[in-house]
């Protein structure tokens, strides 16, 4: 049988969930970042699936934009990570815990 829409959506949900778990569990900043990328990709898959099944191109265009934004975000984000690393010599996100009351 052909894969149904729900299959793709389920896969996307699973990938998204795994990404969420990773964000909460990982202590290395770069690992966290990569999990966020995973979450973005899961959403991309959803968009493409819907676009394919409903024969609407705007889904894929959206994916295009998302990818661009992800690229920009990667660049800036990694720059910030390097700046923090310079400051603290540690990539443990738990060490950056002074933003509190």
């Amino acid at each position: 049988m052909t894969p149904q829409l729900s299959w793709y959506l389920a896969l996307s949900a699973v990938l998204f969930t795994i990404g969420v778990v990773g964000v909460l569990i990982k202590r290395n900043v770069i690992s966290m970042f990569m999990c966020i990328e995973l979450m973005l990709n899961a959403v991309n898959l959803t968009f493409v699936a819907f676009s394919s099944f409903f024969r609407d191109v705007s889904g894929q265009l959206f994916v295009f934009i998302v990818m661009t934004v992800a690229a920009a975000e990667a660049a800036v984000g990694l720059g910030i990570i390097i700046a923090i690393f310079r400051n603290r010599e540690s990539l443990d996100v738990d060490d950056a815990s002074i933003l509190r009351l």
Partner: protein
Amino acid sequence: MGTNNLLSLIIFAPLAGAVINWLVGRRLRNERFIGVVACASVGISTLIAFYLAFKPDGALRATQPLMDHLWTWIQVGTFRADFGLAMDRLSGIYALFITFVGLLIHIFATGYMHGDRGYYRFFAYLNLFMFAMLTLVLADNFLLMFVGWEGVGLCSYLLIGFYLDKEEAAPAAKKAFIANRVGDWGFVLGLMLIFFMTGSISFFEKKALGVTSALTAIGNLPIDGFGWHAIFAGGVTSIAVLLFIGATGKSAQIPLFVWLPDAMAGPTPVSALIHAATMVTAGVYMVVRCSAIYTHAPTAMFIVAIVGAATALFAATIGIAQNDIKKVLAYSTISQLGYMFLACGMGAFVAAILHVMTHAFFKAQLFLGSGSVIHGMHHEQDMRRMGGLRKYMPITWLTMCAGWLAICGVPIFAGFFSKDEILWKTWSGQIAGAPPALGKALWFIGAVTALLTAIYMTRLMVMTFWGNERFREKTIEDSHGHGSHGAHTPHESPWTMTIPLIVLAVLSTIGGLVGVPYALSSLTGGHPENYFERTLEPAVNSVPGEETNAGQGTAELHWLTPPPQEVDGKPAFAPAKRSEAEAVHGPAEISQERLFTLISIMVAITGIGIGWVMFQKQPLRQMPRLLEHKYYVDEIYDAAVIQPILVISREGLWKLFDIGVIDGLIHSLGRTVVNLGRTIRHMQLGFVRGYAAIILAGALIIIGYFAYSGAHVLRFLVK
């Protein structure tokens, strides 16, 4: 029944003396000033009391009491309690000897307390006591009497604990107050029950003010049955028993007598005044005042008689083994109070009051004499270290002999007439519903007690005044651990102390002659009147069966003695009518009474003889240890009552409830808030991952909401 303002002066003069001594005497610290103020205020009371009692239409002559309504204290609904005084015959007699003996003791105390730093305090308290006691006897309703009742308890506490540096004084004071308080529980319940039953708590009827007499109301009720059920039925017997519980506390009967021996830690004038002459007789006053209640409650009278007799015997057995001179007298007081209650229980209220009066004389005499001895021995109280004092303190010795003979019941001394009357009335008395042999059994107990009384009093006199001068020896075993005061020679006391002793000795000798019973007075062929009985008889109810009318005899006079003949001088009264009770004094009765008088004399002389023989040669004879340790009553009370209460209070009420529940509630409230804060704090620790988790949680909630609400729409789209 006129309003009489002098009456209020009787109680307010000592109060004024107390206030002046407290405020002014404290500044001046002049012993003469304080002493004069104190004695003068009591002197004023004495003069007024004598005037009001003996004037032609005074309290002892008139048929209605002298009343003085000062103000309406409480009036709530049907409940009314006035601050009103009333001097009728009973309270008149009491007021007379309270003020007079009180005056003598005040004078004595000015000498005894000389040099004490708390001189002003002592006399302020003593005057306050006189105020409270006079309020007690002159009150015209139960509530005001209770005010005086509590007041004497308070003053007793203050005065027992007077010596601030004596270690045993404060616990003794507390014990006295608490034991009194336990009794007061019964008194108050009885008071409430009286109000509940009769709607009034006044002794006398005051038509002008609309006040009815509770006693008259109870007097009109039928007599209660005899038996256990009557005590708990909530009727007259319950009232009587509850009031008696109050009397056991105040007058040191079983089971609440334990405070009186410890109260000897106070100064000797206090022991004389409060714990011999006045406060402890308040219980007897109350019972006699409520004679209407008791004569209608035979079960209560039974209880009163049994408790009185038991206490008399019990205390006498302890008294013969005590070594402290004041303790012997304390147990003697308890024993004599037992006699008074025995008389009340058997219906001989007049005899009880006579014994109250004579006891006041000779017991005050004995206490003051012992105070003189203690003073002369430089505050040595142990009889084992006295001896042969009659050479050094002759006045004290002679006066104490008078008291000694009086208490033993030797004829014409005061105690003889009253004690003999009690014993006779016990033998011949009846309580409705009780076994007829009760009187005989109680008489026997009374006779044994009289024997023991004579023995221990003789022991006291012998150890103190005769024999070797043991105070010179240093070898006597000493429980205090310091050497004996053998170097000091005892000296006689100053005139301030010996004059009252002499006066009281005279009273102890002739004071009983007002109450000579008919059986004996008819022997002499002289004035065959029992003045005392005639005076007091109308004021108290008689035991049912002896008279046909119930209620207070305020309208008519009842004669138990034959009407006075005109032998020498007119009698004070005009006879009203003879009652059928005259048959009591028929010839058979009279000869029986004379026989019993003889037996009483024999008992007294035997007791003195036994005491003399046992102790003259061997004054330090060891008495049974059980008696010396007072049957371990205090230890038993401590273990059975006090320790459980302490444990329950400390462990249960304090630790468990106060700290555990109440404090725990508050603390848990605080802890909850702290824990809540601690939990919520975790939301913002600064960890990025934590923040991410919280964001995710919030997002899930929102998504969940939309998913749930959206499902309604989607449901319709599903095939």
